[in-house]
C-alpha cells in the first residue's frame, strides 16, 4: 500500500485519508468565512446539538477545534498571552484563553482565529466553562449567547430534567429564528440528523475497527480524523469523508496492517491530547506502544436517529443530555473499563489537563477504581492540551516509562 511506501522508515503508518482532511478543513474554513460575511455564522461548543443551527442554515465553527489548531502550531502560549493581557488568568481553560486571545488579535493568528460570529451557541453538557468563555466572546464581538442548559444527570435522566432541556431546545429554535428571521423545517432537521447519524455511525465503525490486533489506528490518527464528526456533522461531505476512512481502516484490519509497525503494548488514552506534542504518540510507537482507544474521541459517538423517542426534538434532548461527560464520575469510569475490556488493553494513561477541571478533577480517584475493576495498571501525567508552558516532557517520560516497565 502507498502509505507504507511513503513512511517506510517511521514506526507508524500514515493514513491516506488524512489528505482528504485538509480538503475538508479548507472547505469548512471557506464556508465559515462566507457565512460570517453573510451574517449567519454560529460559534458552537463541541457537545452542542449542531443539527439545529445547520438545519436552520447557519454556518458553524467550533472554537475548541481552533484551539487544537493553535495548540498544534505551538503558538498556544503566545496567543493565550493576548487573553492574559486582557486580564484572563493563566489558570483558565486554554481553549478559552486562545479563543479570546485570537479574537483580540486575529491578525496575529492567521491559522486558528475564527471568522466573526453572529451568534454564540453554548452547551454545558461538556463543562460549565463554555458559558463563561462564550460570554467573554460575546462582550468582545457583540454576538448574542444562547446557553442550552443540560443539567448533569446521574444514572438516568428524570422527567423534569428532560422537560427542562426540551424547553431549552425549543427556546434555542426560537432564539435562532428571531435573530435570523427564519424557521426550522422539521423535514430539513430530519435530513440533517440523518446525515449526522450516518457520519457518526461510520465514525463508530472506524473506532471499533481498532479492536483488531494490530490496531489500524493510533491515538493521533483518531484525534486528527475526528475533526469532521465534530465540525461538519450533518453534511454530505462529512459522510463521504468517513466512508473513505472506514474503507481504509477496515482494509488495514483485513490485511493485518497496524497503525504502528510493531505493536507490543495496547494502552487506553484518557482525556484531550497534548496538541502541541502529538509526537508523544509517535515516540511511544517506536517502542511498540499503540493506543487503540481513548475516552476523548469516543465521546462523539452519540447517535440521534434510531432511538425510540417520539420526536426529533426528543431525540436531541436525549442524545445531548446523555453525553457521558454529563453523567459524572461513574459514567467515566464505566466508559474506561468498557474500553479496556472491549479493546483488550494492557494499561492506561490519564492526561491530567490543568485547563479542564470538569474532565480532570476526579482522575486520581478513577485511576484507582479502573485498576481495581480491570486489573490493568495506569499512570497519570499532567500538562495542558494547548498551553505547553505547563507540559513537563521529562517528568512525563519518567512516569510513562514506569508504566511500560510494568508491562514489558
Amino acid at each position, binding site marked *: 500500500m502507498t502509505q507504507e511506501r511513503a513512511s517506510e522508515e517511521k514506526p507508524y503508518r500514515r493514513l491516506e485519508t488524512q489528505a482528504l482532511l485538509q480538503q475538508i478543513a479548507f472547505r469548512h474554513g471557506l464556508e465559515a468565512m462566507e457565512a460570517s460575511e453573510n451574517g449567519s455564522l454560529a460559534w458552537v461548543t463541541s457537545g452542542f446539538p449542531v443539527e439545529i443551527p445547520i438545519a436552520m442554515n447557519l454556518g458553524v465553527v467550533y472554537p475548541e477545534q481552533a484551539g487544537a489548531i493553535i495548540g498544534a502550531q505551538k503558538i498556544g502560549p503566545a496567543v493565550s498571552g493576548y487573553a492574559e493581557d*486582557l*486580564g*484572563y*488568568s493563566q*489558570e*483558565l*481553560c486554554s481553549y*478559552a484563553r486562545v479563543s479570546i486571545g485570537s479574537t483580540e488579535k486575529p491578525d496575529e493568528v492567521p491559522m486558528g482565529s475564527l471568522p466573526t460570529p453572529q451568534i454564540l451557541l453554548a452547551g*454545558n453538557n461538556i*463543562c*460549565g*466553562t463554555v*458559558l*463563561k*468563555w462564550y*460570554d*467573554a466572546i*460575546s*462582550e468582545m464581538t457583540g454576538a448574542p*449567547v444562547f*446557553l442550552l*442548559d443540560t*443539567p*448533569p444527570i*446521574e444514572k438516568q435522566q*428524570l422527567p*423534569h*430534567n428532560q*422537560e*427542562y432541556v426540551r*424547553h*431549552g431546545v425549543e*427556546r434555542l429554535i426560537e432564539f435562532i429564528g428571531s435573530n435570523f428571521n427564519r424557521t426550522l423545517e422539521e423535514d430539513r432537521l430530519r435530513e440533517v440528523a440523518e446525515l449526522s447519524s450516518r457520519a457518526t455511525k461510520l465514525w463508530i465503525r472506524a473506532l471499533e475497527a481498532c479492536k483488531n490486533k494490530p490496531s489500524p489506528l493510533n491515538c493521533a490518527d483518531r484525534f486528527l480524523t475526528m475533526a469532521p464528526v465534530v465540525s461538519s456533522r450533518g453534511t454530505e461531505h462529512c459522510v463521504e469523508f468517513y466512508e473513505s476512512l472506514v474503507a481504509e481502516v477496515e482494509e488495514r484490519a483485513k490485511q493485518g496492517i497496524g497503525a504502528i509497525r510493531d505493536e507490543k503494548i495496547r494502552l487506553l488514552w484518557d482525556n484531550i491530547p497534548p496538541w502541541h506534542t502529538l509526537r508523544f504518540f509517535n515516540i511511544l510507537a517506536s517502542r511498540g506502544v499503540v493506543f487503540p482507544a481513548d475516552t476523548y474521541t469516543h465521546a462523539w459517538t452519540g447517535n440521534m436517529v434510531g432511538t425510540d423517542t417520539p420526536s426529533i426534538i426528543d431525540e436531541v434532548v436525549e442524545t445531548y443530555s446523555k453525553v457521558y461527560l454529563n453523567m*459524572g*464520575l*461513574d459514567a467515566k469510569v464505566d466508559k474506561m473499563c468498557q474500553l479496556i475490556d472491549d479493546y483488550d488493553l494492557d494499561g492506561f494513561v490519564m492526561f*491530567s489537563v*490543568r485547563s479542564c*477541571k*470538569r474532565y*480532570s*478533577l*476526579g*482522575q*486520581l*480517584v478513577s485511576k484507582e*477504581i479502573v485498576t481495581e475493576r480491570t486489573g490493568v495498571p495506569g499512570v497519570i501525567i*499532567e500538562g495542558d492540551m494547548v498551553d505547553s508552558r505547563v507540559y513537563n516532557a521529562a517528568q512525563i517520560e519518567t512516569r510513562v516509562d514506569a508504566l511500560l516497565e510494568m508491562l514489558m
Partner: protein
Amino acid sequence: MNYEGVIEQSSVGLKELVESGEEIIGYIYPHVPLELFMAHGFTPSLVRALPGTSSGFEESLQTFACSYIRNLYSQRANGQLLPLAGLLFPGNTCDALQNLGDIWRVRFPDDRVFRLTYPVTRYSQDESTTKFLAEELRILSETIANTFNRPFLTESYDRAIELVQDFHASAQFLYSARVVNPKIIPYSEVVRLIRTFLTAPTISSVSNIKDTAARVRVTSEDLGLVDMIETVRLAITSGDYSGVKLPEDLETPRVVIAGGMVEPQAIATLINDIPDISDSAIVLDLLSFGFKTAFTEAPSKSSDPYLAMAQSVLTAPGEPTHEGLSYRMKAMKDLLSNLSIQGLMVCEQSFCDPDQFEAPSIERAASELGVKTVRVPLDPELSDRGRIETRIQTFLDTLE
C-alpha cells in the same frame, strides 16, 4: 482577634447544637432553601473553607482544583468537619463542585451525600427554570424524608419561613444602613452576624442579628437616616435606583467588594489589620456568602412549598455560575454609579473559573464608570497575606 479566632468564634453556636444532639445537614453552595431542611427537623449549616487547612486533599484532588474545594476536602480528610447527618452538594454550578460531589461519594462512602441540581438559565422567560428547581427540591425533600424517616412538616416549614425572613429583613437593613453610613456598624460585625446565622440558623442567632438591626435602626432614627436606608434597600431589591437618596457629606473612600465564594470575614479582617484603615471604607460587598445571601427574598406562603422555595432561591442576585453576564454587569454598574462608589476590589480564589472569568468583565465595567479596581487573589488560607494587605493599602491610598 486573628482570622482563625474570628472564624472559630462563629462556629461556637454550631458546636453547642451538635453537643445538644441536634442533627445537622451541611450544605456548600449558598443558595439553598434553609426552610426545606428545617421543615424536616434538621438544622442546615453552611460548610465553609477554614483557614489553616492547607493539606489533606492530595490523594484525591490535583493542585489545580480551586483552593475552596481543596480546603473542604482537606477538612473532611483531616477529620475537622463536625458530625453531619448529611451533606448537600450543588449540581450544575461550577465544575469544581460538581466533581467534588462525585469524589466525595467515592472517598467517604459512609457520608450521606445529597445533590441539588440548579438551572443555569435565568432569563428563559418561561416557567421551565422554576419548575425544574421546584422538582429538584421536591425530590430532595422526599429523599430526606425516606432516608431519615422525617417527613416534611408544614408547621415547621411555616416557622422556618418566619425565622429566615427575620434574618433577611435584618441583614438587608444592616447592609442598606451601611451604604448610607458605613460607620453606623462595622462591616466585620455585619458579616459576623451573617456567618453565625448561616452556620447555625437558630432562634438565638436570628435574635442576635435582629437585636443589632433594631439598635442600628434607633441610631439611624436619631441621625434621620431611616428613610434614606429604606430607599437604598428598595433600590437594591428592585434594581431601580431612581428613588435613592444618600447624605451629601459621604465620607470617602467608598469601596465595594466583588467576588464569589470569598469569605467576607476574611476581607474584613484583612482591612481592619491594615494600620490607619478601618472597614468603614467598605460600603458593600457583592459576595455569595454576604450580599447575595442577604438579598434573597423569602418564599411566599403558597400551597406548593417547593415552587415557593424555588422562586425564592431564584431571586438571589445572579452568580457567575449562571447565565447573564451582561445583566450582572448592568446591575453592578447601576449599583456602583448610584451608590457613589469610587473603588472596587475584585477578589478571586485561585483556580476558580467563575471568579477568574468574570473578573476582567468587572474591571472593564467599572472602568467605564471611572471606578478604580484592584484584583485581590484570596484563598481561604490567606496565603501571601502581607502582599495582599500592601496591595489593598496601596489601592485605598489611590482613592484618597
